[in-house]
C-alpha cells in the first residue's frame, strides 16, 4: 500500500515535470509568427502604459534606443498571477469562485514545498523534523489552501452547471476536471481529519517518501487522497489546465511581442528561414499547382498572370 503511494507520487512528479517541459518546448519551437500584439503592453514606457500607448506614438520611432520597462512588466505579471486581475476586471462572478480556487492551489504549493524542504533538512541534519515555527506555518497555509481550493473548485463546478452561458459551453471534461480537484483534495482533507491518533501525517509521509520507508502505515483515506492528488498533478499538463505554461506564451510571445525587425538579426534569420518553407495551399491565387516557397508565393502576382 505504502509502496503504491510512493510510486504514484514519484511517477506523477516525473510525468508532471516531463509533460510541462515538453509542452513549453513545443510552444517555444513554433516558428516566429507575424506581429500580433495587443495594447496595453506593460513593458512600454511608464508614461504610455497608463493610456495603453506604444512606441508608435513617438515620431520616427525607429531611431534611437527603445527602452523596455521590465519593472512594469513584472508588476503586471505579479498582479495577474497573484490576483487573477483580468478575470477580476472582466468577469467578477467567476473571479469570486476562481480566485479562492487558485489562491488555495498557490497555498498548497507553498505548504508542500515547506513540508518537503523540512523533510530534506531533517535528512541532511540526520534528525527528523525542523523548526516548529516552519511546521506551524506550513500546517496553517496548507489547511487554508485545502479549504480554499476545494471550496473554489466546488463553486466553479456548481457555477458551470447553473449559469446558462457556461452550461452551454461546458464539456464533460470540464466537469470531470473540477470534480477531480474536489474529490482528490477533499479526500486529503478528510484523510487528515479522520487520521487516527499517532498515525503518520504529511510530515511523516514526506520523510518516509524521501527515505523510501515502505514500512510506514499510512491511513487508507489519506493515502487515497494523496494518490488521487498525485495523479491530478500528472494529469494537469496534459490538458488545457496547463495554462500556467500557455499563458506565458500568449502574453510574452503574442500580446506583448512588439519587437521591431529593424536591426534584429534573430528575427531576420527566422524570417529568412520561414520564407524557404513550402506552401501547399491549393486555392488558385496561392498555388501554381506545385508547392512553392513562401518567397515565391509573395513575389507572384496572380492577377497579372491571369491578365496575360
Amino acid at each position: 500500500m505504502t509502496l503504491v503511494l510512493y510510486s504514484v507520487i514519484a511517477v506523477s512528479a516525473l510525468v508532471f515535470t516531463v509533460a510541462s517541459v515538453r509542452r513549453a518546448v513545443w510552444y517555444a519551437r513554433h516558428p516566429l509568427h507575424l506581429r500580433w500584439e495587443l495594447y496595453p503592453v506593460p513593458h512600454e514606457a511608464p508614461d504610455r502604459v497608463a493610456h495603453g500607448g506604444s512606441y508608435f506614438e513617438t515620431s520616427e520611432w525607429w531611431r534611437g534606443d527603445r527602452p523596455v520597462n521590465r519593472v512594469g512588466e513584472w508588476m503586471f505579471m505579479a498582479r495577474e498571477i497573484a490576483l487573477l486581475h483580468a478575470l477580476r476586471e472582466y468577469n467578477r462572478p467567476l473571479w469570486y469562485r476562481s480566485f479562492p480556487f487558485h489562491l488555495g492551489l498557490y497555498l498548497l504549493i507553498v505548504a508542500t514545498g515547506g513540508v518537503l524542504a523540512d523533510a530534506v533538512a531533517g535528512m541532511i541534519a540526520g534528525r527528523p523534523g525542523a523548526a516548529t515555527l516552519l511546521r506551524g506555518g506550513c500546517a496553517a497555509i496548507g489547511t487554508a489552501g485545502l479549504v480554499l481550493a476545494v471550496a473554489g473548485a466546488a463553486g466553479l463546478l456548481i457555477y458551470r452547471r447553473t449559469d446558462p452561458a457556461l452550461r452551454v459551453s461546458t464539456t464533460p471534461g470540464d466537469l470531470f476536471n473540477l470534480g477531480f480537484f474536489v474529490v482528490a483534495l477533499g479526500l486529503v482533507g478528510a484523510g487528515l481529519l479522520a487520521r487516527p491518533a499517532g498515525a503518520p501525517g504529511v510530515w511523516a509521509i514526506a520523510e518516509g517518501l524521501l527515505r523510501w520507508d515502505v514500512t510506514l502505515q499510512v491511513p487508507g483515506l489519506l493515502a487515497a487522497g494523496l494518490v488521487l492528488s498525485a495523479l491530478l498533478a500528472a494529469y494537469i499538463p496534459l490538458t488545457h489546465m496547463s495554462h500556467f505554461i500557455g499563458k506565458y506564451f500568449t502574453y510574452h510571445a503574442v500580446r506583448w511581442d512588439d519587437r521591431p525587425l529593424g536591426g534584429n538579426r534573430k528575427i531576420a534569420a527566422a524570417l529568412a528561414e520561414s520564407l524557404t518553407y513550402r506552401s501547399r495551399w491549393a486555392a488558385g491565387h496561392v498555388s501554381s499547382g506545385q508547392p512553392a516557397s513562401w518567397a515565391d508565393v509573395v513575389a507572384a502576382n496572380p492577377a497579372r498572370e491571369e491578365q496575360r
Partner: protein
Amino acid sequence: MKRPTSLSDLSRRDPAAITRIDPAALAPLGPDTPPATHPTPAAPPVTSAAAVELDGTRALVLPNPQTPEEEQRLVEAFLSGLEKLFSREDNWTFLQPLVLSMEHCAHCQTCADACHIFESSGEEDIYRPTYRSEILRRLYYQYVRGGGLLSAWQHGSVELNWPMVARLAELAYRCNLCRRCAQTCPLGVDNGLVAHEIRKLFSQEMGIAPKELHAAGSMLQIKTGSTTGMNAAAAKDNLQFIDEEMREKTGLTVETPWDVEGADVLLIHNAGEVLAWPENPGAFGVILNAAGISWTMSSDIAGYDSVNYGVWYDDAQFARVARLHAQAAKKLKVKKIVIGECGHAHKALLVVADRLLAGDLEIPRQSFLTVLRDIVVGGRLRLDPSRNDFPVTLHDPCNTVRLMGIVEPQREIIRAVCPQFREMHPHGVDNYCCGGGSGFAIMSSNTFPQWRAEVSGRKKVQQILDAFADCLDPSVRKYVCAPCSNCKGQIRDTLAYHDIWTRHGILYGGLVELVVNAMADVKPGFIEWEWR
C-alpha cells in the same frame, strides 16, 4: 423563451438559418432616440432550395453542391485546409498564437461580454466569440491531434458535414476582428485570431472569400494598383481635380507632388478617400504644403492605395500588397512611408508586415497621426480653434489604437483644435469597434449592410448618441471624428440607416478636415454641414 443555439446546430442538415435576429431583443439606441423604423435583417432571396443559411444574411457566395459526392469533395478540401492551418510550413505566419488559442480556452465566456456583436444582437449564441472557436477547436482535436473517444469526451466533438463547413465560412464573417475579446481573456486566448484563421483556411485552400475583399479587392489592387480599380493615371487626374478644388475652397496654394525622388515622405492614402471623401486627401495636401513638408505620392502599382485587405483573410494577398507598398517607396528613395487615415493599412504595414519587410524592403513607416501631431503641437500652422466651436467626439479605430497603441497623438491634435471635444465611453484601447472592421464596411451583398447597421454597428451608434447626450437637438451641429476610412464608411452608413443626421444633426468626418477647418489662413467654412 428562446432555445439556446448549440454547437451541433451548425451541422444541421436542414438548410434553413439556425438563428434569426429577434428585433425585440436589439438594444435601444440611446436617449431620446425612438427605435429604428427599419426592419431587422430579413431572409435573403433564396436562389436555390438547398443553399445553407446561417442567420438570415450572407457575406459569401458559397458552392451549392447538388450530389453527395460534390459535398464530400468540399468537405475533404476543408479538411485538407484544416491540416495546413496547423502545419509549420503552410502557416508559420500565425501558427503559434493559433495553437495557443486552441489549447487553452477555459470556456469561461469572459470574452462574450466584451463583444459588441454578441451584446448588440440580443446575445445570440452563435455570435459568442467562443462559438466559432469551439467548432474549430473540436475539429482540431478530432482531425489534427488524433481524436479518439477520450479526446471527444475531454474536448467535445462536432459532426463534420457540408452544412457545418458552409455555416462556419459565413460565421467567420460575423466577427470584426477587433480583438476586444482577446483583450479581456484571462488566459490570452484570441478568438479574433481564430476567426481570421478560419477565413484564411477558406480563402487559401478553397478560394472562398467575400468578393469585395478578394476578386474586387486585393486581386483588383495587384492588377490595377487600387482596390477601387483606379489606375495611376486616373488617380493623378483625381488628385489634380482635388487640388484645384482645395485651392478654390481654402485660398491657399495646393499641389500634390507625384513621384518625387528623395522626398522625405511617401504619403499613401486609402484610395477610397479620393473617390468618396476627396476633402480628406485635399486636407492632407493643404496641411503638408502649409507646414513645408517634403512629400510625394507614388504612381507605382499599389503605391497610391494603402489598402491591404489581405490582413483580414489571406496571408499571401497580404504579403504581396505589403511588398508592393515597400517597393514603391524604395523605388522613389524616400526617407519614410506615412500612412494616411486608414486604420487597417496602419496595422498591416507598420505592425503585421514588420516581419516580412526585411533586407531590400526594409523602410521606416510612420502613422500620419504623429506627423500631424508634430505639425499642430509644434506650432507649424496658424490655428484658430474657435472655428471648430461645436461638439466633437472621437472614434478610436481598433487597428490604430488597441492593436497598435497609438492613443494620445490624435487627442493632442483634437484638444488643440476642438474646444468642445468630449470622449466616448469607453475609449482608447478599450473602445468598441465601429462595426465595419475587417472588411464589413465595404461588404454590401445581400442584406449584409442591414445586418451591420442593426447589429455590428449598433454599439457605436449608442456610444455616439451617449457622447452627445447633452446636445442631441438637431439644430446643434455635431461632429464624429473617425480617422480611418473604413470606420468612416461604416459610421456614415449606420448614421444614415438610423436617420441620425436628421434626428440629431450628427455629421461624421476625418481628423485632417478638423485641422484645416481651424487653420487661420484658410477661408472659413472648410467643413460643410451637409450630409454626404
